[in-house]
């Protein structure tokens, strides 16, 4: 069984924000990068599946990302966790960061790898679109289930019983045949930590870099990015913890009486 896990190196803003000269993105100097939280759970699920099927030949977990060279950090973390192979697809700039363009690039890899299962995170923490995985499923011709919190795979029938978590925590029990694409929700498992040796070994592994063209319209174009006006916002209680605590106690008392 071959599983492809699609991952993203996400960017978070620190305490400061600066919009770049184009006016269409934040200045990348202010960003801190990490492997998307949802993708960590997706990779862990793939690794567990592989381990549960162990003893049979040819099980492989392949991680793929779309991004520039810096994004290889995310792939290295995946390799350290136990992924067998990593692929990076070259990306364009801001004009090619929309989910449809990314999905087209990923579809090129799915077409080549022909996996039995594709896992993506539900969403990335920096963009919160919840779109790339399901777009990819469509372009790759795979059935899909989005927002999955449990996977039971039956190798004999090549079917998976999965839970889809709806609003309010209601679970939808869904059956889907392989090959399929699932978008994985946080909390589905307890992701492992990579040990130092694994991290070292991962750093020595080769990452395949490929170009996949993306032809066709984008999902959207970012015309302008801006820091929203604070508006009335919150009334700030000060910077002295004792004073703040006293004010909190006062507000609580007033509102509850």
């Amino acid at each position, binding site marked *: 069984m071959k599983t492809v896990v699609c991952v993203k190196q996400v960017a978070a803003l620190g305490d400061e924000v600066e919009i770049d000269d184009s006016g269409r993105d934040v200045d990348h100097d202010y960003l801190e990068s990490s492997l998307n939280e949802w993708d960590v759970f997706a990779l862990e699920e793939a690794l567990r599946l592989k381990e549960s099927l162990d003893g049979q030949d040819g099980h492989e977990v392949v991680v793929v990302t779309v991004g520039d060279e810096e994004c290889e950090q995310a792939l290295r973390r995946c390799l350290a966790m136990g992924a067998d192979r990593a692929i990076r697809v070259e990306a364009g700039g801001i004009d090619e960061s929309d989910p449809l363009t990314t999905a087209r690039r990923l579809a090129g890899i799915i077409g080549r790898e022909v996996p039995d299962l594709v896992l993506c995170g539900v969403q990335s923490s920096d963009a919160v679109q919840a779109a790339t995985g399901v777009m990819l499923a469509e372009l790759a011709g795979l059935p899909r289930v989005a927002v999955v919190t449990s996977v039971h795979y039956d190798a004999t029938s090549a079917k998976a019983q999965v839970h889809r978590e709806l609003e309010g925590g209601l679970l939808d029990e869904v059956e889907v045949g392989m090959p399929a694409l699932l978008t994985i929700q946080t909390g589905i498992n307890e992701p492992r930590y990579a040990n130092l040796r694994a991290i070292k070994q991962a750093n020595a592994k080769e990452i395949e870099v490929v170009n996949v063209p993306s032809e066709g319209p984008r999902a959207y174009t970012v015309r302008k990015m801006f820091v929203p006006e604070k508006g009335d916002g919150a009334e700030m209680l000060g910077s002295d913890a004792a004073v703040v605590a*006293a004010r909190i106690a006062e507000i609580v008392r007033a509102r509850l009486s």
Partner: protein
Amino acid sequence: MSGTLVLAEHLGGKVRDVTLELVTAAQGLPRPVTVAVIAASPEALLDSVDLVGVDEIVAVRAGESDDFENDVYQQALDTLLDGSEPEVILAGFTVNSMGYAPAVAARRELGFASDVFSVEVESPGTIVATRAFYGSKVHGELTFAAGAPVLLLLRPTVWAPATPGGSAARRHLSLETTPSRARHRGYREPPPSEVDITTSDFLLSIGRGIGERDNIERFVELAEKMGATLAVSRPIVDAGWMPSARQVGQSGKTVKPKVYLAFGISGAVQHLAGMKGAGTIIAVNSDPDAAIFSVADFGAVLDLFDVADELDKLY
């Protein structure tokens, strides 16, 4: 291309609130406003979408049951679009929409954006949508290629629900759909729990900012001393530190306490969905740009442990 198509969402025989909000959002968009109800037996749901501002209702009979299956919705939406292309298509940014809307957009090369909280027609034919990026710290204005409909998934609870009492024309459509490749088999309710955070007047809510499992206990104690019920954000449940019954947000509980005191919660959209209706929101977060401050009434940019220490002394 003309008009706005609203995709109704329903569960267990009831139209969900977000559908009413979509109709309100559609009021500033191209007319006519058509609401599509996709189900095996849509008829029973039609009255609930006959809202003020709806011009037409399409009952799309599709699938083997009323329960959501993503391929059935995809085929139904495809058929609607084959018939006549609206300029704008609206659905909620919900778990169901996540399962089929991006697929339709990819297949048909539609303009697409999700978690949209503002949309307008800037000039005839030009739709501009606004959504957040980078942990809700910046907003982006999006435009779309001309010549194709724009499919937008709108953030729930931003628009007020439209009011009942419309007088829309009704149309019926019957579809022969092929069975969904992902089949609905049943539902499972969240496990019953002894605590009900939705009935508490005062919630002390903790998020990932508390750092470690060992810190949970002190907030359990602080909540008790303050007379609050302890609530949490999703990562605390994901880590297995607290049961899901205490989770506030889209996949947890929607709460409206008199006071919501948040410690170390960033204010992700799916968290805000569950608590922004609280009477008074107080947020403590070390990040001055945390999105939670945009919905809070009172805030403090401080280390939450320092504030907790001081509260401990007061109670």
